[in-house]
Structures are given as structure tokens and as C-alpha cells.
């Protein structure tokens, strides 16, 4: 059997999506509660790593995932930089927040201007980046050896 034992596989199947959902929750509520892009991104990466450890993967799939995650990582970085440059072009200030995007009312989900967007960018970068690190370290190869 590829991957880990049945117990791990079934529980992973139940929980991986919920872990991803919780990561998304943390990322999107980064401007309202503790946590944010980095913490949520780590959770997202944890979900991806959990699935790839539990079910194992063939070399080809891993390669494809690696390329995909590196693309996602770069686009997260570009998105973050784009937010900074948007402020720069609109109001002369890097990372300018006031007056550029909809600020909203405090403690609502859509509020805080560019901060939620920046959190999403960071979450994308961290999640994809950590998963890419995992794949590059080849940790799943050790599980598959038997």
C-alpha cells in the first residue's frame, strides 16, 4: 500500500479539508483576530503536507506539485509587491493604505483596506512556499521507502 496506514489515511481524509478551511479562516481574519497570513499559511501548508504524507505520491505528481507550488509562491510575492506598488502609484507612498481601497467598518470582514489582501498574498506565499520546502526536502520519499 502506498503511503501510511489505513488509520492515518482515513483520518487525513476527514480532517485535511477542515485544516485547509481553518487556515483560510485564519488568513481572512488576520486583521480582526490574532494570526494572519503567516499563521494561516502554515496551516494551509500543513494540510497539503498531511495529505501528501498520508497518501504518498509518485515522483511525477510530486514534480508537478513542486512546480505548481513554486508558481503559487511567486504569484503570492508578486501580489504583495503589487499592493505596495498600487499605493505607490496612487498616492506616492509604498504600502499606502488610506483612501486606496474600501476601508469598511471596524471588525467586519471586509475592512482594513489592503491589509486583508496583503494577508491573502502572504498566506499564498507561505503556504505554497512551505509545501515547496517539504517537497524539496523530499520528506515523503522516506515514508514511501517501505
Amino acid at each position: 500500500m502506498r503511503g501510511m496506514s489505513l488509520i492515518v489515511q482515513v483520518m487525513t481524509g476527514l480532517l485535511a479539508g477542515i485544516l485547509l478551511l481553518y487556515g483560510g479562516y485564519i488568513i481572512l481574519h488576520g486583521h480582526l483576530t490574532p494570526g494572519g497570513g503567516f499563521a494561516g499559511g502554515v496551516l494551509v501548508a500543513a494540510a497539503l503536507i498531511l495529505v501528501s504524507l498520508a497518501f504518498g505520491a509518485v515522483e511525477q505528481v510530486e514534480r508537478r506539485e513542486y512546480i505548481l507550488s513554486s508558481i503559487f509562491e511567486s504569484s503570492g510575492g508578486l501580489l504583495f509587491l503589487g499592493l505596495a506598488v498600487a499605493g505607490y502609484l496612487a498616492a506616492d507612498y509604498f504600502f499606502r493604505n488610506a483612501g486606496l481601497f474600501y476601508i469598511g467598518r471596524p471588525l467586519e470582514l471586509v475592512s482594513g483596506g489592503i491589509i486583508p489582501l496583503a494577508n491573502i498574498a502572504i498566506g499564498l506565499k507561505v503556504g505554497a512556499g512551505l509545501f515547496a520546502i517539504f517537497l524539496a526536502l523530499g520528506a515523503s520519499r522516506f515514508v514511501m521507502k517501505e
Partner: protein
Amino acid sequence: MIPYLACVLLFLIGLYVVISKRNLIKIVIGFSLIEYAVNLFFALVGFKKGALAPIITQPEQVRMGVARNFVDPVPQALVLTAIVIGLSTTALMLSLAMRLYEKYKTFDISEIRRLKG
């Protein structure tokens, strides 16, 4: 005072591990100890006795600009950044250690001596 001294102690333990241990993985662990010590110290810097976590929970606080008795949030933000840096260095260090293991089939640093001087 004691928490600060504990941080320094943790730092010294980490330094001892980095200097004296022969195993690559143990060196990485020692380095993580150093990093935790510094991060903990930095987080302690912002601590105020009896103060609250710097989180706004009620909309009124924003509107009225109420300055509650918060701990200093800046060190926490900085420590978060430092943790991210530490994460990437640890990952890079571990990957280098794994590469060394693949090349030399050992984690013992005294057997990894291609370079002298």
C-alpha cells in the same frame, strides 16, 4: 529579572550545543535554541505587568480611540518577523544537513572534513 537571565541561559545552552556537538542535526537544534532565546527575550521586552493583549475587540474602542492598558505590540510584531526568518534559516540548514548526509552517509561533523583551514 529572572526571565531575562533565563533567556541568557537558554542562549548559552544553545551556543554550547552548537559549539560542542558533533552531529549536524544537534547543531541545528542548538541553533534553534539560540533563536528561541533571542525571540523570547525580545517578546519579554514589550511586557508590562497587568497589561492586556493589544487586541481591539469592540468597535467602540476604535471609534473613541481608547488607549487601553495594552502591552507594547511592536516587539511582538518584530518577533513574528524574526520567527519567519528563523523558520527559513532552519529549513535551509536542515536541507544542507540532508545534502551532507546524502554525500557522506553520516551526520558526524568530524568525518565531514573535506575543507581544511
